């Protein structure tokens, strides 16, 4: 069947019945969220176990069950691999991994898939695991990619039932209160796992810094935690700073950033108290910096910014240019220190900022957001999941949630990377539909979605270079011969969920080239 972004999707993916994407806000649910598991304890209970293996036994983890993780250590994570190794030693098979995201450090997952320990993966796959899954035929069911909010929603809705949540916790107490902003190796807020901790049949806090009761802030609460395990290592905080978190020095990217900041200033939302989303990625960081300069010049301050906490954003907080930073995840150590020290800096969870099935969420309060893209097409659809060769590359992150929520959603993307044009007739995969994208900023000009004539008028009045996507695509087309395109077969590698649980696209196995 064809869904609302004109993508061919099947009625069934693996064992799952597909609800097709019909529109960014088409789903209205009137049923109930699922109930959480009953838990009980006596005042004398001892939750501390000597090892991950002991926790696996205590939780009754068995073949085919679902285990979950957060990604707050990003490429420095040590918990996923430890738990999977322990599962392998226990002879477990057919597990489903429900991680928020996997990174290159999780390459050993591939061996666990080959040996049958892992049968299914749902969550972002950055790097080798994505490339492996793209080969097809590896998983018992196609992978499922969800946004931050979509992942949270799927648990509450009962789409995914977690059997055991393993939560890497930089500091915890023996009852299982835990935080990510203190301890020997802080990684920033770990509230991505708050929904796992509440809904999982069993919840295990894995820490390398066990401290006397009470450890706070209570990002993970003793009330939800079944067991606590102390290990030597849970992650390397140096690696939460990834390569995408350096301020860009490329003249092309700096031009995109400058045009984006100027477009925000010209858009009409740039007034005292406005809210913006400051992401990671070289261009977004530069936009944040330029916006700070513009606010200072105009004598205004942002009411709030949603991060990706970064040193840059914290600098704006300290300079009084942003009054409140709402932080879902920390991207560097400065952001973590600020969470401990700054009054205006608040850790938030995806249920708070991104959940479709909720009465409100923080991204809906955003006036402006700037997000990256791998590809954009003439309908303003955005792909962040696959490379132009059809390989699964990246997760969704908060892309859909922010794009759907912000008053003005801007995509910042170079018109060409190497020899590959980034503005296409049709994106390889639709991650985020054009209906929630307002503006695309490239170094060759700013394209405005036809729905937003108001913005086009404002940009033109400000002397900004407004172009159409077709013009930009055509200009780039003169610099390189057209690339070949992947030919997709029938096998589905991954399903891309829209944040409401409908299927916006599927990633099929590449069979050849045209």
């Amino acid at each position: 069947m064809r869904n609302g972004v004109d993508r061919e999707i099947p009625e069934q993916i693996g064992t799952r019945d597909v609800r097709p994407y019909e529109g960014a806000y088409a789903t209205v649910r009137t049923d109930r969220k699922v109930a959480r598991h009953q838990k009980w304890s006596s005042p004398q209970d001892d939750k501390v176990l000597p090892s991950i293996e002991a926790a696996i036994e205590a939780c009754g983890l068995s073949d085919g069950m679902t285990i979950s993780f957060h990604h707050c250590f990003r490429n420095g994570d040590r918990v996923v691999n430890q738990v999977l190794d322990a599962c392998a030693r226990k002879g477990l098979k057919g597990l489903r991994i429900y991680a928020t995201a996997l990174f290159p450090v999780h390459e050993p997952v591939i061996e666990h898939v080959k040996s049958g320990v892992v049968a299914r993966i749902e969550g972002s796959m950055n790097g080798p695991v994505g490339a492996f899954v793209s080969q097809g035929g590896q998983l018992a069911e196609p992978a499922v990619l969800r946004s931050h909010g979509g992942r949270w929603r799927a648990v509450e809705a009962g789409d995914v039932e977690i059997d055991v949540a393993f939560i890497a916790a930089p500091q915890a107490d023996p009852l299982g209160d835990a935080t990510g902003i203190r301890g020997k190796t802080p990684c920033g807020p770990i509230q991505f796992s708050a929904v796992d901790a509440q809904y999982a049949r069993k919840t295990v806090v894995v820490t390398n810094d066990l401290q006397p009761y009470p450890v706070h802030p209570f990002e993970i609460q003793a009330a939800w935690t079944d067991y606590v395990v102390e290990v030597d290592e849970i992650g390397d905080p140096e690696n939460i700073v990834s390569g995408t978190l350096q301020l860009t020095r490329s003249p092309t990217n700096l031009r995109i950033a400058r045009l984006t900041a100027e477009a925000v200033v010209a858009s009409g939302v740039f007034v005292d108290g406005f809210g913006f989303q400051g992401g990671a990625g070289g261009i977004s960081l530069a936009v944040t910096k330029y916006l700070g300069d513009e606010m200072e010049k105009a004598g205004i301050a942002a009411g709030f910014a949603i991060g990706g906490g970064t040193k840059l954003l914290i600098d704006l907080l300290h300079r009084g240019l942003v009054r409140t930073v709402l932080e879902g995840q920390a991207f560097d150590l400065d952001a973590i220190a600020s969470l401990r020290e700054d009054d205006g800096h608040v850790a938030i969870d995806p249920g708070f900022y991104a959940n479709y099935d909720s009465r409100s969420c923080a991204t809906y309060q955003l006036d402006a957001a700037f997000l990256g893209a791998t590809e954009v097409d003439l309908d303003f659809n955005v792909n962040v999941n696959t490379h132009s060769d059809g390989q699964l590359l990246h997760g969704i992150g908060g892309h859909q949630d922010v794009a759907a929520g912000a008053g003005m959603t801007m995509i910042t993307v170079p018109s060409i990377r190497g020899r590959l044009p980034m503005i296409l007739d049709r994106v390889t995969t639709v991650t985020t539909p054009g209906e929630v994208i307002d503006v695309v900023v490239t170094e060759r000009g700013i394209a405005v979605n036809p729905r937003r004539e108001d913005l086009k008028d404002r940009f033109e009045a400000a002397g900004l270079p407004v172009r159409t996507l077709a013009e930009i695509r055509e200009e780039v087309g003169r610099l390189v011969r057209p690339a070949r395109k992947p030919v997709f077969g029938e096998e589905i590698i991954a399903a891309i969920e829209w944040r409401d649980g409908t299927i916006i696209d599927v990633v099929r196995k590449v069979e050849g080239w045209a």
Partner: protein
Amino acid sequence: MSVRSGSEAKGDCLVEVADSADGLEVATKNADLLGDGIRDVVHEVLAEVGCEGVALRVADFGGLDYVIAARTEAAARAADPTGTGRVTPAVDRIASDRDRPRRSRLYAPGNQPRLLAGIDVHGADCLLFDLEDSVPPAEKAAARILVKHLLAAVPFRDEVWVRINPLELGGDADVEEVLLGRPHGICLPKAESDKDIRALSELLARVESDLRYDEGSTWIIPILETAQGILHSEAIAASSDRIVMLAFGAEDYTRDVGALRSRRSLLYARSAIVAAAAAAGVQASDTVFSDVNDDDGLRKEAELGRELGFDGKGAVNPRQLPTIHRAFSPTDEELERARAIVAAAREAETEGLGVVALDGRMIDRPVLDRAKRLIKYADRLSEGGDRDA
């Protein structure tokens, strides 16, 4: 060492002449997507230079078509130095106006594809592709071929220039090659006398004639960067109708005269250039400011340049353009004043008055002319598109 052209840098491509005649090998990160397109470009170039038999190994690192074409041509020609074939692209660029605004001249190194890709988007008034100081001797031949292909492939909105080497150091070969890409003009470094300009002008006339361009359609910017050049600036400025602007190069100048670089040490040279340019009715462009991170220092130096009478300034990084453009664009107050002067003149004319007065003060003819020029200049700038550009 084998015959090769290009490099493994991002945005470039390395073309090597293979020992055995086993045709064309292409390596690229996205071979399935991009291999065919690269092969097409290589084959077309080899056919045009008459080297179809040459076996090549092409390693691509994200080079655009014109980069691959240039590297292929350079390697093929190096493999067969006796051959006369070369790529003569079709270019439809037309000559630029003598008096167009030239607030900025942005330098880009002529043999670094990564820095050339996208250089057209920043809105520089003049782009200067450099074959001189930024290109090591061993790369000069490849650089002039690359700049030719770049000029031909990209529909630049900016005015495009090539800084050649001094004529006796390969500048003649530079001109022969890059004029095929139809630049608007040639920058001559270390110009020291009217003879230098006449030699370049004669060379340009010959190549223009060979290529059937209109004679005199290629402009010249002499770069004055020695004591001789400064002392002869008046004669240089007046030596050819091709000259539209004089440019100052402070680095070489301070070295030549033994000065430390400062506002004071450069004052004479700067003022001499401004006066020589004004006397000849051409524009004057100040030296580059090389600390890319010091925006405040750049702003101050640009404002000084404007104060001294320069029309523009050199830039070494696109980030410097907004600051330079702001400094050399008429301010709102200046424009307002100019419009008031023109309005007063119009009023005086309708009322048949011989004397123009504004706010009780008489307006001389030169002041009125200057006001009109300023308004015209501002109009031309606003046609340019980008607010900052």
